[in-house]
């Protein structure tokens, strides 16, 4: 239950914790009266947002109905059953929304939330820099106030979707005399201005799923600061917490609703654009699902040493999957989530690496080929040259082990020398 629940409401739903059945029935009734696949995507979404059924778990004054997360899920379920298209709940948009809802001003909420939900505005997140990866708080993109605007200079990297984003969440250093965590400020930046240059970043597997962003005297008006000056680290933590929570959702989002009609076609196009950077992610994770089928197809299934390699992958992959379910099941029983959750990332890296090894053994000489000449039309070679990213993207294995040992096992942090003095005195990279 959120604190916004008591706010004034203009919906017709029961006040206070309504039960699931009545919510489901109410939304069903509304959908029966309003859902029309022949509307444009924008028309339909506006209707949905205005009804409060688009984001029912959001506060009433900001397009929602102040329902619990659980009831929100029930509403989504009804939309799914009806085949009705939802609001634009893509990953990065949701991170922006969550951050703005928690730390933004009313102006931010009024200006950004609506076009974000309709899908008109796309967003990107500008945190990582060439010089600060694992050590995000070591960032050096500078924001200097010129009396009127904040002037941005610096470089960001690993920014998915920046090439079509209208707005960016950006973290920059506004004070160099404070310790590193205290001198950062969080802004919302207009990506479509002259001082912002977006360049695609090509990966070793040939895809270009990320961008580099160069700021050269880019401008942000003071009212686009989120929270206070110097409070950027705390706001960024909110964004990152939602990112971790949504990690699976971001990647699997948008299989798309099935049906015919204008709204579906437009949604399909939207999904294709949003999902484009993620299409190699299953290969990056090692495609464990293909191993036995491939081994049987190539005859390598008869080789006991190949079976050992496959078994090693299966053991780790299934055990990791069951660990995830164990965490969820415990959570569902109302137990405090244990530290098991943070282990999934590390397990995933190892699964991917073991799977690539097994795929190599199975492919044999074919592992040398790619594209149409390669096994499964190049899918196998894409696995082989994508898995190295799994142990880096979203936090390296080394950082995961730090987190696991410190937060999960209560082991002491290493002595730090970079947090207790002015940032300008902390040794840092001269080049990226």
């Amino acid at each position, binding site marked *: 239950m959120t604190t916004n629940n008591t706010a004034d409401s203009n919906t017709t739903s029961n006040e206070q914790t309504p039960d699931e059945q009545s919510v489901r029935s109410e939304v069903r009734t509304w959908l029966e009266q309003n859902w029309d696949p022949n509307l444009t995507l924008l028309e339909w979404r506006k209707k949905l947002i205005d009804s409060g059924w688009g984001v029912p778990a959001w506060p009433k004054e900001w397009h929602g109905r102040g329902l619990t997360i659980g009831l929100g899920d029930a509403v989504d379920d009804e939309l799914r059953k009806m085949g009705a298209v939802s609001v634009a709940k893509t990953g990065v948009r949701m991170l922006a929304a969550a951050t703005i809802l928690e730390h933004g001003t009313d102006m931010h909420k009024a200006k950004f939330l609506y076009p974000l939900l309709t899908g008109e505005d796309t967003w990107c997140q500008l945190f990582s820099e060439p010089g600060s990866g694992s050590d995000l708080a070591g960032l050096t993109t500078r924001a200097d106030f010129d009396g009127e605007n904040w002037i941005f200079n610096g470089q960001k990297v690993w920014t998915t979707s920046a090439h079509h984003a209208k707005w960016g969440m950006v973290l920059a250093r506004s004070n160099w005399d404070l310790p590193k965590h205290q001198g950062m400020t969080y802004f919302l930046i207009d990506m479509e201005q002259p001082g912002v240059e977006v360049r695609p970043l090509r990966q070793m597997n040939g895809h270009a799923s990320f961008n580099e962003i160069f700021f050269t005297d880019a401008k942000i008006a003071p009212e686009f600061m989120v929270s206070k000056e110097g409070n950027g680290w705390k706001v960024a933590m909110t964004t990152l917490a939602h990112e971790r929570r949504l990690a699976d959702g971001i990647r699997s989002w948008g299989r798309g609703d099935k049906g015919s009609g204008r709204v579906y076609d437009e949604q399909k196009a939207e999904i294709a654009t949003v999902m484009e950077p993620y299409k190699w992610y299953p290969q990056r994770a090692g495609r464990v699902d293909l191993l036995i089928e491939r081994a049987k197809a190539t005859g390598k299934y008869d080789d006991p040493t190949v079976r050992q390699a496959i*078994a090693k992958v299966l053991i780790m992959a299934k055990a990791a999957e069951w660990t995830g379910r164990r965490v969820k099941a415990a959570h569902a029983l109302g137990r405090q989530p244990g530290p098991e959750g943070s282990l999934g990332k590390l397990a995933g890296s190892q699964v991917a690496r073991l799977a690539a090894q097994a795929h190599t053994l199975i492919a044999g000489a074919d592992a040398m080929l790619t594209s149409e000449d390669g096994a499964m039309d190049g899918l196998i070679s894409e696995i082989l040259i994508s898995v190295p990213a799994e142990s880096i993207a979203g936090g390296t294995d080394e950082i995961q082990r730090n987190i696991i040992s410190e937060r999960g096992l209560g082991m002491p942090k290493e002595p730090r020398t970079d947090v207790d003095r002015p940032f300008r005195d902390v040794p840092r990279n001269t080049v990226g």
Partner: protein
Amino acid sequence: MQYTFSDEQEEFRLIVRRFMDDKSPTTEVRELMATDQGYDKAVWKQLSQELGLPGIHIPEAYGGQGFGFIELCIVMEEMGRALLCAPFFSATALAATAIMSAGTEEQKLALLPDIASGETLAALAYNESSGHWDPASTALTATPSDDGYVLNGGKSFVVDGHVADLLIAVARTPGTSGIYGLSLFSLEGKGEGVKRRLLQSLDPTRKLAQIEFDNAPATLLGELDAGGTTLPHILDLAAVALASESVGSAQKMLESSIEYALLRMQFGRLIGSFQAIKHKCADMFLEVELAKSAAYYAASAAAEQTPDFPAVASLAKACASDTYMKAAQECIQIHGGIGFTWENDTHLYFKRAKSSEVFLGDPNYHRDQLVLRWED
């Protein structure tokens, strides 16, 4: 599929753990492992009468507690954690499971209540000196006699076989081969024609016996020649029980490692503040959690008799064996020299890990079984 334990199961675990903490400190383990008998009769009596553990997964109709395989595995896990020296694995997890799987209704009624009460110690005589885990390798013969059968041949690696009142032996009808002609038989441990010898085992906390059968009279358990069907399942259940024990021990190794790393100083710092040790512990933690998940899933699959059970039984056994072995090794490593001493308790766990690594089939064997049994 049950992915986590119910509140009742967690409560039960706590009760078992408290009992183990109380009755099986390593001082006690060290005393018992030095004896031939290998367990404490008084503790066994308490464990039987106060907690009813020997009958944990035996139905109430046969005098048991009527819980399921998941509860059996919780007990195994806690016993592994405490390295309890007691004939629970042999009598309840192995022998009672075999009787429940293969015996006739009449035999279950006759044999199980005394096992459930802890009064009868039973043992499963399955493996032979060849050391193979495939039922097809059985050589012990069962020849029909006037009032039943007589067994001839030998068994080895029989857990607690030297003290068992009741032996459940796997034997074959003369002239058969492979998985055909295999049956289970019951006979008294001190019966005629039975010669038993305690083996010198690397892990002194798990007693193993060699048994010679010289025209030893025995009773057919269940149906003749049905062993080819019942045995694989019995062995899978045994493997999951052992996997549960191993994850309990592995968890203990993790905790012991952390505890020492947060106590020991070198170079003016806790060794637990060095990345080399932190990352080693993070990896151990990951592996132990994964092994737990595998063991829990397999126990659940056993309880619910899901079709993937044979594959996941092998998965859990391979995973738990490797994890426990590695955790014990790393626990010694983190302790440094002290970890290699007799005085330090880690070696007790290390030796159990080595023994559990190969008992019921080594990880390579089970990995192979896992893939061969896997259904997409």
